[in-house]
């Protein structure tokens, strides 16, 4: 009765590479135990650092057995046989002593190594002693499991008629006899193992760990031949240089040392020159209203700065221009809140930005603003030319109009009932509840967010549109994009091409605002330029503020002047820089300089997540200045985690680790050691250098890294380029470790060698100083002081930059350790959630908004869409306070509406509106939500992002 139990016998398969004798053990044992084990030959690729383990028995997904003794225990258990201590001991003997000794002996020069031979001899004699009177290792008259284990391991040695075999006749006899027994003979026929060094090679190719561990054993016995040691070290560091490279290094070393290419302070202005490449570098303009945070800084100004400084070290003719983007709604509303004029707000925040970038040592040639007359002039001129060339269209759009306010409302100023889900506080462009995108005109019961009024109607409004489709066709945009984007970062290329593929549509370039560049057409004189049309023109107008000869950079039809224009930005700015701006310029039919290298980064996240306004997570320029950690360290880490091919994250722990391991232990350690040797052993003078072959090899290694570094830097792969520098200082450290100048200095006979080693070390320090200059200018300066030199010298090879006898300056450590306590403190201060903040706030005396700079709820995040950064001053969400404020707001709102309805005195209305805005603002602070006034969630207005 009942179903018969179906037992499925898995067929055990042993995979092995052809000829590998290690497979003998499992096969023999399986035959002795009457357990079926099939052999499967596999071919393996010969390249690749990680090798697959073979032979291997894969029983199931999680059970992969590559340890042959473990396979033996498995087979025995499957065959219901016991593992007795004698067998176990033998397996350990095999794994710990016999097998390593045999493999070491059969490796390339193993048989010539005395220590190895000695060890193997010892192991073999121990085995010989275990042979029982019947001539086997088992307790019986026939070879069994004990024999199988040892026989398999010694097979490659004894089957090759190695001379060592003659020392162990008894063992040889046992071996020959055993081969004849069925299980063993059959195994030989199945596996067809190779023997001798060939056999050993088949083992090594699938089990280098075996090699490494055996060699490590040998190191312990300190009888290792130096060739083996270098093989291992080279395998692990991967820096084997070719003889050609060494020869090239030697030749360069003996050649002329160039002068520094760095130009001195110029009296005039930087203008393009003929006969050489000229570099124009711009970084996306930071929006003035926000305090920049780390993501903004690495994405834009810092990246551009590294590249700009690199150009300067190379003596290139380069101009680095940037500035604050100041027009737009957010500034307008902030001005209202703070009771200042927009211009005053911009003045205030522009100074803050300047301060922060100065602290970061950003070397702009000019840092300007968009609120200049040049901006208006140039912007309007471009607009008019587009108009003349018929690339502008006037179109009517349906927009919401607030009657009390008498203004058209853009998405950020509208709230209403979502047409899809009925949520009552849907925003103008998107519903928070159901996330659907809306048009503000589709909202039911729309309300004006400025005054709270429901008297919002839809009205036709005429706006000016840029006719992108026409531009695309007539100015052959796609053709230009195809060619130009080859030099862009892949993400930028991808984004631009996707936009084009979607099909370009007319884009509205005017807005109903007051604070902006006025539209130069009579009909539209009350409107201003849309920020994304206006802002990139800032690059041009700022150059115009810098020099009256700005046209030489921007509209230059001369064939003799070549301008390589590099633009740096975060990826959300790409569409505007890759299509909108070039299209606008092309539409004027003037020979504008267009971008050649668009370098876009991905997003920098913060610790475990994104910047979040509701949680108040983020680290800002002002915060960074307060930490007490020097700017160069921040520069270093931000570049180290620069989000190039994908998003990356800022982590306090990682920041600390990188500082301590890379800066302190690697770079700082090398520089400090090197200069201290000169100070202590050579009276602070660079000694005479007499180069040996080994030294040239090190130079060749360094040269390889330099070339790679420069290649990466030209592609603006700053992250990787930085790592190259660290690789060079690592080479320096390894060089010292192997040469041990601290020991050489003790003997008079080694004096010259000591001098050479320390001298070469000093040259590497000089090189590092030059390479570090774009990344950490302060540190480079410090090294120059310690080296007592004035300028970096760019060179693609390591040279004896410092002549013998050159006196260096005072030596001191470059970096400090960051300890985890400090990191914990900082992490708590700039992260955490509301509960933590509440605690903190309770402890601190409450100060009304710390400094309006750090209170930036009203600002728009530029790196992460939708989230606005919150103040570090903290938010305490006391429900009672919130309720009170909400009541006050309601009251004030009613008051305002009444005044407006009564058509009261304008000044009075304005005063009450201001009060209302202030209350709403405070509510926003308290509840951690953005204020309704500056709804940064509005995607349209997030066009302010820079």
């Amino acid at each position, binding site marked *: 009765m009942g179903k018969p139990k179906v037992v499925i016998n898995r067929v055990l398969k042993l995979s092995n590479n052809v000829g590998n004798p290690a497979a003998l053990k499992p096969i023999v044992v399986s035959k002795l135990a009457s357990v079926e084990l099939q052999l499967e030959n596999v071919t393996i690729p010969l390249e690749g*650092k*990680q090798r697959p*383990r073979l032979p291997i028995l894969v*029983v*199931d*997904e*999680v*059970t*992969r*057995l*590559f*340890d042959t*003794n*473990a*396979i033996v*225990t*498995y087979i025995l*258990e*499957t065959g219901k046989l016991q593992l007795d*201590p*004698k067998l*176990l*001991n033998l397996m*350990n003997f095999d*794994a*710990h002593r016999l097998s390593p000794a045999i493999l070491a002996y059969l490796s390339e020069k193993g048989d010539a190594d005395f220590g190895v031979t000695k060890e193997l001899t010892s192991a073999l004699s121990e085995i010989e002693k275990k042979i029982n009177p019947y001539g086997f290792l088992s307790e019986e008259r026939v070879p069994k499991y004990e024999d199988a284990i040892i026989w398999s391991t010694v097979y490659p040695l004894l089957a090759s008629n190695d001379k060592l075999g003659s020392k162990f006749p008894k063992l040889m006899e046992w071996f020959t006899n055993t081969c004849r027994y069925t299980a063993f003979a059959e195994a030989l026929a199945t596996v067809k193992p190779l023997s001798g060094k060939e056999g050993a090679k088949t083992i090594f190719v699938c089990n*280098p*760990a075996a090699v*490494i*561990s055996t060699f*490590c054993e040998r190191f312990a016995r300190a009888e290792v031949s130096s060739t083996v040691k270098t093989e291992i070290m080279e395998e*692990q560091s991967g820096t084997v240089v070719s003889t050609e490279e060494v020869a090239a290094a030697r030749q360069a070393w003996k050649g002329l040392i160039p002068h520094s290419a760095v130009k001195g302070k110029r009296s005039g202005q930087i203008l393009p020159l003929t006969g050489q490449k000229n570099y124009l570098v711009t970084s996306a303009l930071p929006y003035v209203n926000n305090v920049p945070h780390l993501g903004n800084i690495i994405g834009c100004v810092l990246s551009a700065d590294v590249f700009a400084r690199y150009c300067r070290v190379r003596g290139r003719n380069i101009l680095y221009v940037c500035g604050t983007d100041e027009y737009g709604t957010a500034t307008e509303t902030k001005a209202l809140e703070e009771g200042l004029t927009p211009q005053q707000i911009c003045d205030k925040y522009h100074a803050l930005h300047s301060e922060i970038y100065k602290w970061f040592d950003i070397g702009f040639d000019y840092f300007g603003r968009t609120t200049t007359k040049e901006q208006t002039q140039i912007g309007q001129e471009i607009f008019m030319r587009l108009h003349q060339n018929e690339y502008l269209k006037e179109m009517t759009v349906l927009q919401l109009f607030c009657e009390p306010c008498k203004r058209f409302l853009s998405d950020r100023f509208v709230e209403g009932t979502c047409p899809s889900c009925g949520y009552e506080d849907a925003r103008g462009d998107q519903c928070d509840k159901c996330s659907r995108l809306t048009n503000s005109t589709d909202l039911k019961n729309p309300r004006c967010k400025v005054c709270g009024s429901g008297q919002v109607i839809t009205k036709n409004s005429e706006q000016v549109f840029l006719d992108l489709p026409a531009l695309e066709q007539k100015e052959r945009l796609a053709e230009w994009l195809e060619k130009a984007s080859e030099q862009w970062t892949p993400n930028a290329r991808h984004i631009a091409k996707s936009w084009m593929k979607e099909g370009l549509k007319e884009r509205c370039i005017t807005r109903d605002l007051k604070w902006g560049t006025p539209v130069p057409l009579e009909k539209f004189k009350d409107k201003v330029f849309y920020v994304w049309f206006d802002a990139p023109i800032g690059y041009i107008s700022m150059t115009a503020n810098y020099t009256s000869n700005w046209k030489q950079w921007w509209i230059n039809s001369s064939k003799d002047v070549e301008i390589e224009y590099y633009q740096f930005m975060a990826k959300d700015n790409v569409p505007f820089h890759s299509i909108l701006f070039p299209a606008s310029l092309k539409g004027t039919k003037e020979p504008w300089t267009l971008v050649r290298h668009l370098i876009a980064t991905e997003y920098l*996240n913060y610790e*475990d*997540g994104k910047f979040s306004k509701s949680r108040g997570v983020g680290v800002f320029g002002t915060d960074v200045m307060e930490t007490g950690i020097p700017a160069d360290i921040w520069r270093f880490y931000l570049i180290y*985690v620069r989000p190039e091919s*994908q998003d*990356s*994250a800022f*982590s306090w*722990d*990682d920041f600390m*680790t*990188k500082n301590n*391991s890379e800066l302190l232990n690697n770079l700082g350690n090398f520089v400090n050691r090197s200069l201290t040797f000169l100070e202590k052993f050579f009276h602070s003078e660079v000694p005479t250098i007499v180069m040996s072959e080994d030294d040239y090899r090190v130079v060749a290694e360094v040269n390889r890294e330099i070339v790679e570094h420069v290649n990466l830097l030209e592609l603006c792969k700053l992250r990787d380029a930085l790592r190259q520098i660290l690789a060079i200082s690592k080479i320096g450290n390894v060089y010292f470790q192997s040469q041990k100048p601290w020991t050489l200095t003790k003997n008079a006979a080694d004096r010259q060698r000591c001098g050479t080693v320390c001298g070469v070390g000093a040259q590497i320090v000089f090189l590092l100083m030059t390479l570090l200059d774009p990344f950490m200018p302060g540190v480079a300066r410090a090294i120059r002081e310690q080296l007592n030199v004035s300028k970096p010298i760019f060179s693609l090879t390591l040279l004896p930059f410092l002549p013998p006898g050159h006196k260096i300056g005072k030596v001191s450590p470059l970096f400090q350790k960051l300890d985890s306590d400090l990191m914990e403190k900082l992490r708590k201060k700039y992260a955490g959630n509301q509960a933590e903040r509440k605690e903190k706030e309770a402890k601190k005396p409450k100060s009304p908004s710390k400094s309006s700079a750090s209170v930036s709820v009203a600002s728009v995040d530029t790196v992460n869409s939708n989230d606005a950064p919150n103040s570090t001053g903290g938010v305490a969400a006391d429900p009672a306070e919130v309720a009170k404020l909400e009541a006050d707001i309601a009251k004030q709102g009613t008051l305002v509406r009444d005044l407006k309805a009564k058509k009261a005195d304008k000044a009075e209305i304005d005063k009450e509106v201001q009060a209302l805005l202030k209350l709403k603002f405070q509510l926003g602070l308290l509840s951690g939500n953005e204020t309704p006034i500056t709804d940064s969630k509005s995607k349209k207005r997030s066009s302010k992002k820079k």
Partner: protein
Amino acid sequence: MGATGKLDDVEIMKRLLKYFGLTDSLNLVNLSKGTTMKDVRLKAGDLQGFNYILIELVNTKGLGLNLSGRSAEQRALVHQWLQYNILHLTDKTSITEYVLKEMDSYLVPCTFFAGHNLTLADPVIYLSLYPVFMDMSFQEKEKYPNLSRWFRLIQEDSELRGKNKKVPFASVPLYNTTNLFH
């Protein structure tokens, strides 16, 4: 534990025996000064080598926790990894990137070294790898995502961790994420 060199095997072995509930059996093992995991012996009988001794003690004690493996497959894996520990992990200088990558690759389908439940192998390897992990940067830890995942799990056991610090791991990848999916 210093940055280089051998761990004190005797201390490790004592700690492990205690951790596995084998304190009573400490006196069965010859743990005189200088004993290594390879040459340690049981006082009675011939058995040598910590890998087999540990299994033997756990089995005879009959703790019923299947620490030496629940199935023939698991038992074989326990053998394999205890041996791996002795061969490659007791000397810190031999824990190379190659070895770590190898271990990482074998952990891809497994929660623990012997499959999906804790066995003798895991705590033993934890103690061997702890000094290495303590020195690793976040970037290096990300090179071995499965091993790091396993380490992060195993170190949660405070009894095993003892005075060791918790090695920090980033919960979002900070560096190249392409090797997450081997």
